């Protein structure tokens, strides 16, 4: 029902927008996402992104981690600031490691999880000065989620920041995964890539619990029913 209502238009950044949710039975696309399911790109102001870059503004030579996959926009913006970028499409890595109908069940397998963690986020301690995690944490089953957050904490330097995004619609049984492109320091270009059920729903308390080992957690609720979260290591 909601997905029918959601019809993004190009370049419209001002009007409130409903994010694609499905409240009926989940349309499971846990496997690799198809290009046919991709929607139009829309842009909007992002307070989370603005805060993230405000915190690291003026510093050069920083190492940033971007888990949305390589895109010209992100590479161009980040490297133009004088930062070094490490890019990985973690959703694609998840699909490669756990893909199929048993996407979340496979994540509970120690063997699968071990193989995934051996190839993803395998960095030295305190390697990064910031991380753009986007919405990927929503699609991790609890045991793996805990391990991934612990690893993020380990590879980030103390005092550095992390930007994550969670859907704020409690009743959504399937949510849109998106590509997040940086338009400028306060503008995001968002491109839906398909629908899939989240591993779990995160309210503010759940997010705080998730990042309880971090120093601070700050929320921004957006018009498209997303919760942008800035976390300080």
């Amino acid at each position, binding site marked *: 029902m909601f997905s029918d209502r959601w019809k993004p238009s190009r370049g419209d950044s001002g009007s409130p927008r409903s994010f694609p949710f499905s409240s009926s039975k989940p349309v499971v696309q846990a496997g690799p996402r198809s*290009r046919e399911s991709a929607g139009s790109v829309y842009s909007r102001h992002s307070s989370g992104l603005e805060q993230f870059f405000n915190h690291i503004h003026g510093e050069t030579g920083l*190492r940033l981690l971007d888990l949305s*996959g*390589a*895109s*010209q926009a992100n*590479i161009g913006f980040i*490297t133009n600031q004088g930062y*070094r*970028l*490490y*890019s*990985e*499409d973690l959703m*694609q*890595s998840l699909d490669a490691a756990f893909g199929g109908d048993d996407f979340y069940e496979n994540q509970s397998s120690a063997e699968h999880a071990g193989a995934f963690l051996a190839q993803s986020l395998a960095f030295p301690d305190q390697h990064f000065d910031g991380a753009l995690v986007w919405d990927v944490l929503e699609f991790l089953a609890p045991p793996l989620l805990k391990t991934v957050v612990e690893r993020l904490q380990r590879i980030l330097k103390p005092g550095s920041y992390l930007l994550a995004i969670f859907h704020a619609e409690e009743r959504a049984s399937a949510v849109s995964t998106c590509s997040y492109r940086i338009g400028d320091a306060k503008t995001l270009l968002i491109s839906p890539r398909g629908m899939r059920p989240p591993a779990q729903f995160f309210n503010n308390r759940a997010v705080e619990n998730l990042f309880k080992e971090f120093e601070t957690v700050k929320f921004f609720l957006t018009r498209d029913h997303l919760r942008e979260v800035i976390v300080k290591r």
Partner: protein
Amino acid sequence: MWNKRKDEDVRQPAAPTPPPADIVREPAAAPAAPPRPAATEAVRGVAAIGKSVIIKGQILAREDLYLDGEMEGTVEVPEHRLTIGPHAKLQASIRAREVVVLGAVSGNVEAIEKMDIRKDARLIGDIKTGGIVIEDGAFFKGSIDIVRPEPAKQPRQPQQQPQAQVVPAAAAPAVAGDKR
């Protein structure tokens, strides 16, 4: 009879396809190589390694190189463009002036001037380059280090050098005079 002539005409253009052995030109072997056939000239001086070729070792090219086979080792094309074709599977460290990737690469890449990662390309490794273009649909996992060239500093230095040489020469007698 008319048919026979037609057959001959058809066969002639197909004849000069370059043999695979002539495709890769090492710098040392280049002077001894026979004159290039017309078909190679049609590729505009680009050396090409076909998709059925498997190489283990080192490639050093002093002309543009199109690599569409399998390769394990190192590829150096320091002053020219390296194009990694859609069928290529490389496990190699790469250094070239320009790198265009359409196939699969696992290894670090240094593209001195620019790097172009096309749709459906797959690259796992660290990139060091002067500039990068990446198309949607390309898979990349690794770090990107943009190395900005330092422009216009070197041309100025030769102009300043003559002045710098004059100063010590003039200063030396003055110092000597003070001592006296």
